[in-house]
């Protein structure tokens, strides 16, 4: 991972030739140009964007079309389907299947809640948690990674051990441990006061557990960068450590960070779903794709859509952002793709 940004800069000239680019074009414009040519990445990026837009429109759908909220129970209500009045939940507890109309488009769950509305709100929650967790991870990992790599010595020793400590725990287990304890008592660290059922709790947990996955490569890259001549020049020019890290090191790791963002969003969404499925993420009755899958499990034989629909949305969203993320990586570091292909050939030989 330490090679991404330096490769972009060092290999910019060669890459420009390969791309038929004109002299004077910056590495990011060049990458954007390459990304535009990657139709698959763009298509999946558009798919992810579409899911985001749909989820953002959840309140609109709930108010104007479904006429119900995500947590509104309709256990004893009836709904007209094809001119016939049907129970939203039958006397034996069986929920309504898809109506393919505005109300209960995808059917109801055990509590008579509209699946389509919960799906969109659940997506909103999942994406919100994913975005916030990624933001937290990226900010903290950047600070930790650059500080550890630049200062080395004691600072590096302490920070690296903390990262090792977090890394040593399996992500899901650490998430469950933190999730179950924080869901009960919330978070109260100085001015940071969060209720146990706040969406910020799973975002905080996921944001913390993924820090080593970004900070470690950044640290490795910074260890190399700090020995570069342009850093020496800045130091000789009288710049202090903070200024060097901000104006010399950070720009050089920025493309690595850009590559990490979609990957971390995908990972955060998946972990949120896993934690929520296990009851340690988004707290009921708030929906998320993970909680919806969990809720639907006991009705799989008769109402598979309760599990399948949120599962499919989760797969599409993660697939979309992952393929798009790969495209971004390829665009920022065309050599990485070549290297991967070469490794693949070697392995097949």
């Amino acid at each position, binding site marked *: 991972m330490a090679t991404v940004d330096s490769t972009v800069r060092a290999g910019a000239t060669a890459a420009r030739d390969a791309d038929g680019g004109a002299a004077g074009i910056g590495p990011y414009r060049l990458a954007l140009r390459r990304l535009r040519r990657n139709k698959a990445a763009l298509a999946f990026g558009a798919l992810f964007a579409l899911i985001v837009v749909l989820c953002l429109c959840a309140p609109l759908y709930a108010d104007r079309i479904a006429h119900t909220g995500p*947590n*509104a*129970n309709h*256990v*004893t209500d009836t709904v007209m389907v094809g001119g016939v009045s049907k129970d939203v*939940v*039958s*006397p*034996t*507890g*069986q929920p309504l299947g898809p109506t393919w109309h505005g109300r209960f488009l995808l059917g109801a769950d*055990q*509590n008579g809640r509209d699946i389509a509305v919960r799906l969109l709100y659940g997506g909103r929650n999942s994406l919100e948690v994913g975005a916030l967790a990624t933001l937290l991870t990226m900010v903290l990992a950047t600070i930790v990674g650059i500080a550890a790599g630049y200062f080395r010595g004691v600072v590096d020793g302490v920070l690296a051990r903390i990262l090792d400590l977090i890394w040593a725990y399996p992500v899901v287990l650490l998430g469950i441990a933190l999730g*179950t304890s924080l*869901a*009960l008592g919330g978070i109260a660290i100085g001015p940071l006061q969060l*209720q*146990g*059922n706040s969406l910020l709790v799973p975002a905080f947990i996921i944001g913390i557990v993924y820090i080593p996955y970004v900070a470690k490569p950044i640290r490795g890259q910074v260890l190399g960068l700090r020995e570069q001549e342009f850093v020496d020049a800045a130091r000789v020019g009288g710049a202090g450590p903070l200024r060097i890290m901000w104006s010399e090191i950070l720009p050089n790791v920025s493309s690595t960070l850009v590559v990490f963002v979609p990957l971390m969003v995908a990972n955060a969404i998946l972990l949120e779903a896993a934690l929520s499925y296990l*009851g340690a993420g988004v*707290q*009921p*009755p708030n929906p998320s794709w993970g909680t919806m899958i969990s809720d639907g*499990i*006991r*009705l*799989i*034989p*008769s*109402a598979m859509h309760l599990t399948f629909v949120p599962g499919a949305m989760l797969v599409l969203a993660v697939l979309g952002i992952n393929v798009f993320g790969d495209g971004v990586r390829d665009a920022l570091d065309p050599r990485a793709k070549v290297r991967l292909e070469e490794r693949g050939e070697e392995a097949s030989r």
Partner: protein
Amino acid sequence: MRVWIRGAAAIAVALLMAAAGCGGGGSDNKGSTSGGGGQEGGTISVLMGTAPDYLDPGLGYTTQSAEATWISYTPLLTYRHETGQAGGELMPGLATGQPQVSSDGKTYTLTLRRGLEFSDGRPVRASDFRYTIERSIRVNWGGKSFYTSYIAGAAAYDSGDASDISGITTDDATGRITIRLTEPYGAFPNVLAFPSSGLVPSGTPMRNLSNDPPPGVGPYMITNVSPNRSFTVRRNPRFASFNIPDIPTGHLDAVNVKVISNTQSEAQQVLNNEADVFDAGDTLPPSLLPQIESRASDRFERVPVPSTYYFFLNTTKPPFNNLKARQAVNYAIDREAMVRLASGFLEPSCFFIPRGLVGHPTSACPYGDRPDLARARQLVQQSGMAGTPVTVWGEERSPRREYVDYYTDLLNKIGFKATEKIIADAVYFPTIGNAKTDPQTGFADWIQDFPNPSDYYLLMDARAIQPTNNQNFSKVDDPFIQKELKRLNPVPATRLDSVADDWTRLDEYTARQAYVAAYGEESMPKFFSDRIAFDSAVFHPTYLNDWATFQLK
């Protein structure tokens, strides 16, 4: 025709069992055929949706716990191993006979059977009884107020003012046990029949021993405990020699209990004969019900159990320290919705004393038959509690999670600002029963300890409020209820009918005061694999699946 079908079915069962013997299965099936048609010996597997709260008889207070402890720790008196009302009849357990009660109803005298031994071989002495009661108090059993409120000196022992319970005197030489009460209590013989009154040896550590349960006297003993995951109930080889009448010595060698939180998987395994018993405390998933009713009709039955399902409303803190706020909840709740959430395994009711029990009101529900949301909203406004934040506590397992989801939405609809707190099943009741938690409202249920309304009114008795393992979740401390309990509790079980109207009036008063939002009484599933003799297996009205009567076909 009918005879032939039975014959064919028997042949089919025999062939299936032969096949099972060849092919192997999830459970050991060794054993010899008994004279009764079933086999003696063998092992079955029981699945539980939630782990017992404790496997220590001095602490356990859930049905999952009682199923194991009541056949492993026999008290001085116990219940008949029978289905239905007969199962509510008391009979001598380790005592030689029924207690002799003094004319003032305050002194009980019993005699311990001779020659009894604990499962580890130690002899049972009369003094072990006093130690057992002291231990249940010291480890803070959830129902300890049954002891501390009535046995002389028990309250002083509980508070640390006495080193032992002065009201219990024992004579190891004669086996004589005398219990003095502070006031007459008609249901006291039932108190002596609690699994927590099941004898353990003197000197048993006074701490939670769920992971390594102490020795007891019973047809079975609890072993191999893997906390919250599994345990085994194994036959106690010493018990049969005691020849205690009417307590079955058990047919099975062992019962392997496994905790499996997914009721879908739990039911599917029993349906497919991969496991033998579905936990009666769990609700069958609605998606599997049609299959179970068609494919397993000969091994599935809905059994009504005297029970009350309710949401407790903490009367000591806002918003439910306000009568109108509590009544609003009772007006709003849609009991038909609760029935649907329970897959039809609930009979709607708004009274605390369930049907079939003396004192159950036959009058109309004071809050009407249908929910009245408009009235509920109006009452919330009048109470001045609109917008009050409310945390609703609930368990993970279905349909209790669904009940709480519904209830939270309902509270929001009538004007509160409700959020949920769902916690693991195994720690739910200890958590909400802890004074530090002091929950505002949440799910609760009660399945009778004994067929007497006073058992239900433990949950409304101010004397039952305790810092840990509290059962009076609403923290009801009502002078009228206390006065009535003082008058009604002493009435012996044999004369309960004479005060039926008084209990009814009390229960109607409780409903009007809306101390809880009661919504129904449960039917429980008796659901086994094909391997178990269904008809001879007792479904006890208090302790549910009676494993001591289970037998392989």
